């Protein structure tokens, strides 16, 4: 389950526990969970994610290998959903395992920053008025740049 692209819901805590179960000599685990957000000033009824699954699998596997090497991670796992998701549902989860906390944090942030700009997913917000493509954010490019 190192890289999973799925149309089905997942259980964040169950995934974390499965990931932690193989944490023999690890001291630190970081989990990032992205959640569908609906706020009072911008209420949405759903978030629809389009995905090029084959490419996502390839790119995220490459990113994962790079993160493991760069931060000396003991393991890393990425799960990303596509399809139609409701507010409050988990969109994706990144998990890292390392001997020490800074590596686990850095690895998770590195993966998140790259996933935002380099993983072939496209979000559409569904509101009462219809659907609208989410625009790519310049600050996501900037966040990715800090690792280069």
């Amino acid at each position, binding site marked *: 389950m190192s890289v999973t692209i799925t149309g089905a819901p997942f259980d964040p805590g169950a995934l974390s526990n499965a990931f932690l179960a193989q944490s023999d000599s690890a001291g630190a685990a970081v989990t990032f969970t*992205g959640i569908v957000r609906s706020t009072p000033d911008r209420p949405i009824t759903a978030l629809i*994610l*389009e*995905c*090029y699954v*084959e*490419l*996502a699998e*390839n*790119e995220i596997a490459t990113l994962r290998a790079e993160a493991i090497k760069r931060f000396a991670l003991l393991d890393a796992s990425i799960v*990303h959903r596509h399809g139609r998701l409701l507010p409050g549902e988990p*969109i*994706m989860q990144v998990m890292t395992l390392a001997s020490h906390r800074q590596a686990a944090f850095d690895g998770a942030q590195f993966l*998140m920053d790259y*996933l*935002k*700009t*380099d*993983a*072939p*997913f*496209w*979000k*559409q917000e569904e509101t009462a008025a219809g659907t609208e*493509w*989410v*625009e*790519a*954010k310049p600050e*996501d490019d900037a966040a990715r740049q800090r690792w280069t």
Partner: protein
Amino acid sequence: MKILYFAWLRERLNRGEEEVTPPPSVTTIADLLNWLANQDEALALALANPAQFKVSLDARIQPHDAPIAGASTIAILPPMTGG
């Protein structure tokens, strides 16, 4: 070769994929984007700013100066918004 379009690009073109046969002078991804933009008005509009698109050859992202020879599926990818 097969071209795939995603997200708003797919919507604007009203198609997710198509078969194309570019001439031999089209050797790189950049050439292909330029050639596609000259195929019809919808493509011309949608691909007006080619630098914003990442492009994959057989499910691997490649730089715009990469040769397309041998690729059977080429995807044109608007700026991504995953994570």
